């Protein structure tokens, strides 16, 4: 197991370096002229950029970047996005709370609801309850999240006037007003995960319910509910836990679309702005943040299989030895 994890981490670090190099070269090759008609300001900008090394060869710049990042974890400073010369990490950290705030609630809603309805569907398999749940699964999985966002905004927010149309500004995360204005983005974010959890639980649980040990449990005299909860549910949840974990890892990435629609000042919207305004440091920091989350989240999710279910051995050969 240890050797397997080390190998995965090693491979992830190699991929990370390749992606980092690729992105750095690609983004630095973008033309970024000083806008015309800026006069003295333009000349000052050129001098500033010269001092920052913008006109050095890309490889020199890359080495400087690597040295800066790995010796002092300095990701540079904002130039065109956010406050001028504010450290990038500080700027991004100020954006993260909004994204996390909305996504944590969305995840907290979708896991119990997904489990509950998924179980219902599996227990009442092929009855009307299952049919209804299946229809909802199909709709929630297929319809894009921005469509729910519009529907919520129009009907709940505008027609019924129950919630504000966009997220309240400010940093008072624990006030009722903030939560009230966050309800709609939370809902729009949670429909998709609810449906996918429902589908997973339904598939797993309905398979487990037909297993032989369920028959044994019933023969021993357990009621149907006891057998389902004590025996089937626990086993069916094992393959799904990594998906919950993925959900929580995904929280940090945020959803660009939902953040755009509900004017959430989160991390998703920064990215497009950074690329369009050619703020290299913000772009690199944010991209690497996502890439690292993706790479190491994958390892974590894979590892969790082995931790939750001791019968599963990751990375073993044909004989399951390690």
């Amino acid at each position, binding site marked *: 197991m240890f050797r397997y994890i080390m190998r995965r981490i090693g491979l992830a670090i190699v*991929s990370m370096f*390749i992606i980092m190099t690729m992105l750095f070269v690609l983004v630095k090759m973008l033309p970024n002229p000083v806008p015309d008609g800026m006069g003295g300001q333009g000349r000052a900008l050129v001098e500033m950029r010269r001092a920052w090394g913008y006109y050095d060869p890309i490889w020199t710049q890359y080495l400087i970047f690597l040295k800066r990042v790995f010796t002092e974890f300095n990701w540079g400073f904002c130039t065109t996005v956010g406050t001028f010369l504010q450290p990038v990490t500080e700027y991004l950290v100020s954006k993260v709370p909004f994204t996390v705030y909305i996504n944590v609630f969305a995840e907290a809603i979708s896991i119990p609801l997904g489990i509950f309805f998924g179980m219902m569907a599996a227990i009442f398999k092929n009855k009307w309850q299952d049919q209804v749940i299946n229809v909802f699964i199909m709709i929630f999985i297929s319809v894009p999240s921005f*469509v729910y966002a519009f529907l919520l905004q129009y009907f709940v927010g505008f027609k019924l006037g129950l919630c504000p149309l966009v997220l309240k500004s400010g940093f008072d995360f624990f006030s009722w007003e903030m939560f009230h204005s966050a309800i709609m983005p939370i809902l729009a974010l949670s429909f998709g995960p609810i449906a996918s959890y429902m589908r997973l639980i339904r598939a797993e649980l309905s398979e487990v319910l037909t297993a032989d040990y369920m028959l044994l449990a019933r023969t021993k005299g357990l009621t149907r509910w006891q057998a389902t909860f004590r025996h089937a549910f626990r086993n069916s949840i094992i393959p799904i836990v990594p998906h919950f974990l993925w959900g929580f890892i995904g929280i940090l990435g945020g959803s660009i*679309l939902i953040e755009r629609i509900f004017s959430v000042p989160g991390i998703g919207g920064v990215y*497009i702005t950074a*690329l369009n305004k050619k703020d290299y440091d913000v772009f690199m920091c944010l991209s690497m943040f996502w890439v690292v989350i993706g790479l190491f989240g994958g390892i974590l999710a894979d590892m969790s299989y082995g931790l939750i279910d001791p019968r599963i051995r990751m990375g073993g050969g044909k004989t399951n030895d390690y």
Partner: protein
Amino acid sequence: MITNENNMERIPAEKFEFVQLNDKIYDKKLETRPIGFFQDALIRFSQNRGSVICAIILLILLLYAIFGPMISNYSLDEKDGYYQYVLPKMSDKIDLGFWNGCTTKEYNQATYDYLTAIPGAVREDLGSRIGIVANREATLYKVKVDTYARRGFYELLLSTDQVEAARKYEQETGIQLFYPLIDRSQITCQPYSDDPNAWFKTNAKGVAERDANGQLIDIFLKDDGTTPYSYGDGYKYFKPTQGGNQYLARVLYSDWYYYTKGKTACFWFGADEYGYDIFTRLASGARLSFLISITSAIIDLIIGIIIGACEGYYGGWFDLLVERIKEIISEVPSIVFITLAQIYFARKMGGLFVFWVTLVVFGWMGISGTVRAQFYRFKGMEYVMASRTLGAKDRRLIFRHILPNASGFIITSTILSIPGVIFTESSMSFLGIVNLNSKHLTSVGAILANGQTTLTTYPHCLFFPAIFISILLVCFNIFGNGLRDAFNPALRGSN
């Protein structure tokens, strides 16, 4: 009592007889027709009612995308800013009570007066009530307003020839095109100072002054005998401008529209902020979505099969290399690549082509993964070894013996990749990363993005594209799932 007939254990011997004693038995030719793999899949697919319905709906949507622009009254680049944001209307002749371009709202006195001054704008007067507006009591009028007629009058400059042609048309058909010009000096309400609809006398707040009969009092320019084309009612209809070459005239826009374009305005799905017909724009956006997704799925299929087959069949360093490349590409958030590609190449090669290429770059990996897994599964099987022993070449083994096993999986994953592409396209256009919106081109995502800005005031701009894309994606997924079940031999007989 047990009779001899029903007692199976003691059937009398004379009841038995030989079917054949001296005949020879030969193998009979099967009387039923053999059922092939695809035929079997088709049979099982057609038993899945939900999937068949979805397939039919998809076909309808596809037909809408292909023929929509042809059956609509508008062309893709035809816009009329004067009709911006008008509501959906089915037809001029049929009024179902809904889908007729009308909206019911409450208005204050000034707006109510304004609307009654426009011919046809107030479709139905639904009474008034005393309400409270800004802490003051006011009469509120509930009216059903025709959003098409409410555009009302329009002032335009016409050349002498145009005026004469229009006058001739008026005399021939009896339809009045021109209306008297307004005396601007008599307008007391500031917001109405340039409004061609404000032809009546108001106070400073815009509330109309009425005569003894309750009629509006007009403030038309009086005819001073200097302009040609008099109607003989004492009002001035044309005002020479620009040294007498052109005339300022005031027309009722719906009649003028009919006169110039030969049709009455009727937008089935309403019009957007530029006055484009949403029905036509949406159909052509759908056409683009289908075109992008289907062509990129086909290219993905070809690349995916070739690379996946080589990976799976030959294995070794090629497999290792391609797997690492795939891992790296899939780790980079696709949005990064799409944005960078747009910034680099969009100006030179066109945003659409560049976007299509980026889709292919990400798309082939799914298919190649499926194909690779199938090759790993089948390449060690005995029948493949038998064929190789008989001297079959690699190419024959790959395409004749192994690939057909994967055909079901390949078809399903190709079909299921299409909604993903449509979703990517619409979200990228929505975010403004890919700009596919122009005079002659549009996409569903671009229409959605335009509609979102006026969500609360004109929801119809968003409603139709949102419904369209939702139905499309739901149907594609159900259809794809049905196809997957039909192609899965393990499920044969289970449903």
